[in-house]
């Protein structure tokens, strides 16, 4: 099981900011969310695994934390 965190608009689309489910890699996380919440396909977001930014598909292990983050807009 991995811990999936959603922020900003993405949490709004999915109706919650935290999911726990099985996924072997980050593509599987994104695919599942885009299937369950098709509106997710419209927005670009960055991915972090265990608080490290990743680019490209990344293998996941039990207990990993995957964050889906829209463009930052602090300040």
């Amino acid at each position, binding site marked *: 099981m991995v811990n999936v*965190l959603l*922020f*900003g*608009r993405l949490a*709004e689309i999915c109706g919650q900011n935290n999911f726990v489910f099985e996924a072997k890699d980050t593509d599987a996380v994104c695919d599942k969310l885009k299937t369950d919440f098709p509106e997710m396909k419209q927005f670009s977001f960055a991915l*972090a695994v265990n*608080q490290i930014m990743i680019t490209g598909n990344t293998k996941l292990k039990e207990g990993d934390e995957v*964050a889906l*983050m*829209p*463009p*930052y*807009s*602090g*300040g």
Partner: protein
Amino acid sequence: MIEEKKHKKVFVKGPISPGFIADSLAKHAAKHNIGAHSMFMGQVRADVKENGQVVTGIAYEAYQEMATETLHNIREDAFAKYSLTCMHIYHSLGLVKTGEISLFVFTSSAHRRAALEACDYLVERIKKEVQVWGKEILESGETVWKQPG
């Protein structure tokens, strides 16, 4: 030391008050090697949105653990790049109303260039790299996700 810096408190609940800013400044009166302070404050604007509705506030959320780590790295880079005496960064979480302060960046140095340049550098990096999101609250109660800018 690094551990302490990692846990430096950045996020504060609600707006940052002018009194808090004055206290931060006053604390530096005892540091007699400081000759220059630079500050930047982000204030929530009453922008008019496309639907004619006016922004009444911004609700901020952060990926706090990651944002704190990102800010730690930005801070370390600034200390390496500029000859600074002190550096403080505060960002609001939760609701900050129009006219209130949501970001406070404060740099101090012996001579003015370091404080001025470091403050500018920090503001730009914070805006681009820190895991914070703002949601504008309109008069009607509708919300609009803030665009990066």
